[in-house]
């Protein structure tokens, strides 16, 4: 172990397994050098513990000190009192432990079931400790950043990450998008999973801009051969300099009543109007949408409505809603190619798909398209996985579906109806998980939230959002204090399935030429490769 290099902070004085341990700081350590979210190791008698600083406080041995404070202008008195009568304490939540015997060394850190004994020495964790807990960068581990105030690389196991759904939360402008790009690259490089990204704001496919206006490359320019760009709005994509591999069009007959019920809020439909949709579907079959929209004849319409027992005002309400869908430019009566099979074909080849929405950024379009496509892909995956289980064939590649504004899909009212609710709850069995990005996690259904394996949260102001993200994990109040102290930008807390213990970290820088090089082994950027190829051709 690394005692000789580690910086000693103090000793354990009291504590409990539930609430964590109190550490009295040595007099040489200033409380001002401590920071919540930092890692410490505790050298117990038989085992070693890893924990995080979750609170910092000031203590006095005698309450009289606070009532009649000493003359602090005298450095002598201040120096004497520091660490003796007046002292700093830190509250440490231990998370992991590693025993001293050989088997424990091999198994690695385990969740704690006890706490260190009295007066165990507490050290600041060093690079080796972090590596021991989180592992080194390798074929499955991807570097996502550095733990706060440390230079060490923080790596997470991408294979493990994609086993469960992942959530990225934080209020707007905290760096969610940049981190998501990074995470997508991580999945692309270090896991077997393929990604389907519903890219509402056109940020993950081609290029986007930082708040200061600098241009940032997204996935496609960096990984030409591994990413396919789909677009709902070809014109817009080309204007932005991107050349989409496929243009997605959706036929009327592809829209199902479930899609409409999901859009109830956004289309301002009444409950009976949604009911009517199902009746119309039964009556008209696949082409129900077009047919319902074009009932002009009042007689025919009167008959139909009385036949189906739909109230006139309900039908008008429904028609207004459906007209909104009809006006979406990518919805067409006849569609030559099927978007779903195209997407599936790409995913099967291990190619990640980014679907850009172009100018159609309104939530109606997003919910409709994302839900429709995901539902069909879900059906395919389910079928194939079951087939693979039955016949022993190859299972489909693990799929991660990335959605933004997740609370629109996963709020308690619609979570039971949307495909995303189902995926979050049970699709893990069928090799599909979600990557949800959202700024209002409190709007997400509790049940869905509890199924999100790994959560990465940036700063959040709203109490309810914080509570919903941290719900159900041990040491909630401690993590809350860490979360509340994150910087407003580029600092996050990750916890859950993919990491052995929660960690506050600073994501790797993304967006500069330097940062791109890091993602491409050996500095093989496409341009350099091209240059090498050119030279080779030139000289034979």
């Amino acid at each position, binding site marked *: 172990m690394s005692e000789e290099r580690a910086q000693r902070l103090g000793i354990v004085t009291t504590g409990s397994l539930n609430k964590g341990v109190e550490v009295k700081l040595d*007099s040489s350590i200033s409380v001002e050098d401590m920071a919540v979210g930092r890692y410490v190791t505790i050298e117990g008698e038989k085992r070693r513990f890893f924990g995080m600083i979750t609170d910092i406080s000031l203590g006095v*041995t*005698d309450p*009289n*000190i606070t009532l*009649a404070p*000493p*003359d602090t202008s*005298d450095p*002598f*008195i201040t*120096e*004497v*009192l520091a*660490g*003796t*009568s007046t002292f700093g304490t830190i509250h440490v939540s231990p998370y992991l432990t590693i025993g001293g015997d050989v088997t424990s060394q091999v198994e690695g850190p385990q969740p704690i079931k006890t706490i260190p004994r009295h007066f165990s020495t507490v050290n600041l964790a060093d690079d080796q400790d972090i590596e021991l807990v989180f592992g080194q960068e390798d074929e499955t581990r991807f570097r996502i950043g550095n733990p706060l105030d440390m230079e060490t690389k923080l790596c997470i196991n991408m294979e493990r990450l994609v086993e469960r759904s992942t959530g990225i939360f934080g209020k707007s402008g905290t760096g969610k998008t940049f981190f998501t790009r990074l995470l997508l690259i991580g999945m692309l490089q270090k896991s077997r999973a393929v990604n389907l990204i519903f890219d509402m704001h056109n940020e993950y496919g081609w290029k986007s801009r930082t708040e200061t206006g600098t241009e940032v490359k997204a996935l496609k320019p960096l990984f030409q051969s591994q990413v396919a760009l789909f677009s709902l709005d070809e014109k817009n994509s080309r204007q932005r300099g991107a050349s989409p591999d496929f243009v997605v069009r959706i036929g009327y007959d592809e829209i199902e009543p479930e899609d409409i019920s999901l859009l109830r809020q956004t289309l301002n439909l009444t409950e009976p109007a949604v009911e009517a949709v199902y009746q119309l579907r039964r009556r008209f079959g696949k082409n129900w949408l077009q047919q319902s929209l074009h009932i002009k004849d009042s007689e025919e319409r009167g008959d139909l409505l009385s036949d189906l027992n739909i109230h006139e005002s309900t039908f008008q309400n429904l028609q207004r809603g459906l007209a909104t869908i009809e006006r979406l430019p990518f919805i067409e009566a006849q569609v030559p190619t099927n978007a779903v099979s195209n997407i599936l074909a790409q995913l099967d080849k291990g190619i990640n798909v980014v679907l850009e929405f172009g100018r159609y950024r309104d939530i109606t379009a997003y919910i409709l398209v994302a839900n429709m496509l995901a539902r069909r892909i879900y059906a395919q995956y389910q079928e194939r996985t079951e087939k693979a289980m039955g016949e022993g064939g190859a299972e489909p590649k693990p799929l991660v579906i990335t959605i933004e504004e997740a609370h629109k899909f996963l709020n308690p009212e619609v979570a039971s109806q949307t495909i995303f609710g189902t995926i979050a709850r049970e699709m893990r069995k069928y090799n599909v998980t979600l990557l949800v990005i959202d700024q209002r996690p409190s709007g997400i259904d509790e049940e869905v939230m509890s199924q999100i394996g790994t959560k990465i949260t940036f700063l959040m102001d709203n109490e309810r959002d914080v509570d919903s993200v941290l719900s159900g994990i041990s040491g909630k109040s401690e993590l809350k204090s860490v979360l509340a102290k994150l910087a407003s930008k580029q600092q996050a807390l990750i916890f859950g399935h993919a990491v052995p213990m929660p960690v506050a970290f600073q994501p790797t820088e993304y967006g500069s030429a330097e940062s791109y090089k890091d993602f491409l082994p050996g500095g093989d950027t496409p341009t350099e490769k091209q240059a090498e190829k050119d030279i080779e051709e030139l000289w034979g």
Partner: protein
Amino acid sequence: MNEARAGEVIEASTTEFVAQCYELYQSPPLGRLVKTKDGPVDIYAIVYQATTSSLEPGRRPIARGQDEENEEAVYRSSPQLLKLLRSEFSALVVGHRQDEGLYHYLAPKPARIHGFVHLCSPEETKEFSQSLGFLNILVNTHLEVPLEELISAALRQMSAAQEDPRSFLVAAGKELAILLGGEFNRLKAVLERIRA
């Protein structure tokens, strides 16, 4: 070692001894580290009290200086005074040395009567004050002298023998802060008297 002889033990117990000075008014300063012997054992003590009184307990001195010009003249005109008065000092035992070992706790036996009392040299004081264990004895005794006064006087005396008096006083202050954990006002009183 050529150590200054400060007096001779005239009363002794396990925790303290009283010594009479050879010269009137020549008692060591408050807080001074002194030592005496009990056979092979050196007994270290800190001076906590000094008195000057009449040799005979019932016979109090009387005022004599009304017609004299100054105080010195009083003694010049009555030279017998120097023999009728005596100076004594009391010292609290804080440690001992036995078989080359220096211990900061009470000696097994008290000092012997007529044992010579020596002032400790700066080197010896420094050696003794390497450990601050004696502070515990000072803090826990009950004497007529206010403890804050005694402790601060002893620390001031000892710090004079150190190469770095300030860091010695800081270390001693920290030790006291622990010993006087729940008594901040006493600690404050000591610190104000030793501030470096």
